[in-house]
């Protein structure tokens, strides 16, 4: 379990990094926290010709507050996100999800940019970002573009990112005080990738009816799924456990999960059902607080 040979670059600026990527083309890979790329390279499942290490680039590691959004630099570590007072206040779902990624040491190195680029369908950040309607900013040689998270994840470990692009930041909407957010996952052990994960935001109106709901499912299919239409249909319903149960059943009917040797599809579907109900109830409770 040793990586195949590669050339190593540690550019000091984003421009240099982009130039290196442009020069090497698809043979190069960005190296951020190395917590996904490292294992894959050690197992020789990935054998890039060159690594462009972005850790020495200043100014990619931050959490910033704007009027309606917060912006997180691509190199911000999971641990920083999980413990940032700003993220916990403005985007509690993201912090809650971040706390559950892997283990303490993994969260010290792993980055949000790396997690999004890696696009594991069971990972916390892709699901949280897709559900919250985040926008991902990527820099390429000569241009910077913004991609909606809903359009970013294409399939299993494949994204809308071009090989010579680097994610520089993620922008997420701040939660209004009336909104409750929750993230729940089911995994075999603490720190394992989720078998199924659910993310939800619930905003009841003053009369106790559903005003807005966002609901995302991770782990069930080849990418995070946002059940926007299903959720929208429940607008105006009375916000109670009956509503949560109905929406959960609708999610159960709507999601056709993958079947894998260790986890049969039917079990995943049942988890979608149970966890949807649980995540909605929790989010609703939090909205009421």
């Amino acid at each position, binding site marked *: *379990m*040793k*990586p*195949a*040979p*590669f*050339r*190593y670059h*540690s550019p000091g600026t984003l421009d240099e990094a982009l130039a290196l990527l442009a020069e090497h083309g698809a043979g190069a890979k960005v*190296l951020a926290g*190395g*917590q996904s790329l*490292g*294992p894959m390279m*050690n*197992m020789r499942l990935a054998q890039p010709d060159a*690594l462009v*290490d972005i*850790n*020495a680039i200043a100014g990619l590691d931050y959490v910033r507050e704007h009027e309606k959004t917060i912006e997180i630099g691509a190199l911000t570590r999971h641990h920083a996100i999980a413990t940032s007072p700003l993220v916990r206040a403005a985007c509690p779902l993201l912090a809650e999800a971040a706390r559950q990624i*892997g*283990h*303490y*040491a*993994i969260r*010290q*190195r792993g980055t949000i940019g790396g997690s999004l680029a890696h696009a594991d369908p069971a990972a916390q950040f892709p699901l949280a970002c897709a559900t919250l309607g985040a926008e991902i900013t990527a820099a390429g040689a000569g241009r910077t573009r913004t991609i909606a998270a809903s359009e970013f994840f294409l399939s299993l470990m494949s994204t809308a990112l071009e090989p010579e692009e680097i994610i520089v930041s993620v922008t997420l909407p701040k939660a209004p005080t009336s909104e409750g957010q929750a993230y729940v996952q089911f995994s075999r*052990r*603490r*720190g394992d990738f989720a078998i199924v994960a659910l993310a939800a935001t619930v905003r009841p109106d003053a009369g106790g009816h559903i005003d807005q709901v966002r609901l995302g499912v991770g782990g069930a299919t080849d990418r995070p799924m946002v059940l926007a239409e299903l959720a929208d249909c429940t607008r105006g319903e009375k916000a109670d456990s009956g509503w949560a149960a109905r929406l959960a059943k609708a999610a159960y009917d709507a999601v056709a999960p993958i079947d894998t040797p260790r986890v049969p599809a039917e079990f995943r579907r049942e988890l979608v059902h149970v966890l949807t109900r649980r995540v909605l109830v929790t989010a609703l409770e939090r909205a009421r607080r």
Partner: protein
Amino acid sequence: MDTVDFELSVNGERHAVRAEPRKLLTDVLREDCRLTGTHVGCEHGVCGACTVLVDGRPARACLLYAVQMRGHEITTIEAIAKDGVLSPLQQALHEVHGLQCGFCTAGIVMTFEAYLKENPRPTEEEIRDVLSGNLCRCTGYQNIVEAVLKVVHA
């Protein structure tokens, strides 16, 4: 394959290293710096045996290339006991039998040396949560948890 020359700062000591860029920090520590206290149990980030500190933060040495560590300070298990005196955590592990074969121990000590600085008063649940990133096949974890609690309540 081409090697690169670089300097590595480990436990406050500088090491001149010549290695391929792909050489893992675990292997450079163990072979080039001759610090074999950092163990290798999986080389894919799961077992935690290789955990060292990078600028005071725990990191899997098997998921780092040594060449990345230029300009950073690495701390390994060899630097934890000072002048032959075990750290409070090492001492507690000894007193409550928190290690058996000892292969996982360095990674656990390194993780908690850092964690207890961040959170000096964790609950048992928080300790178990952090410890879940280190596999131990011998102890069933109970006495490791006990040792950390002993330090916390000292």
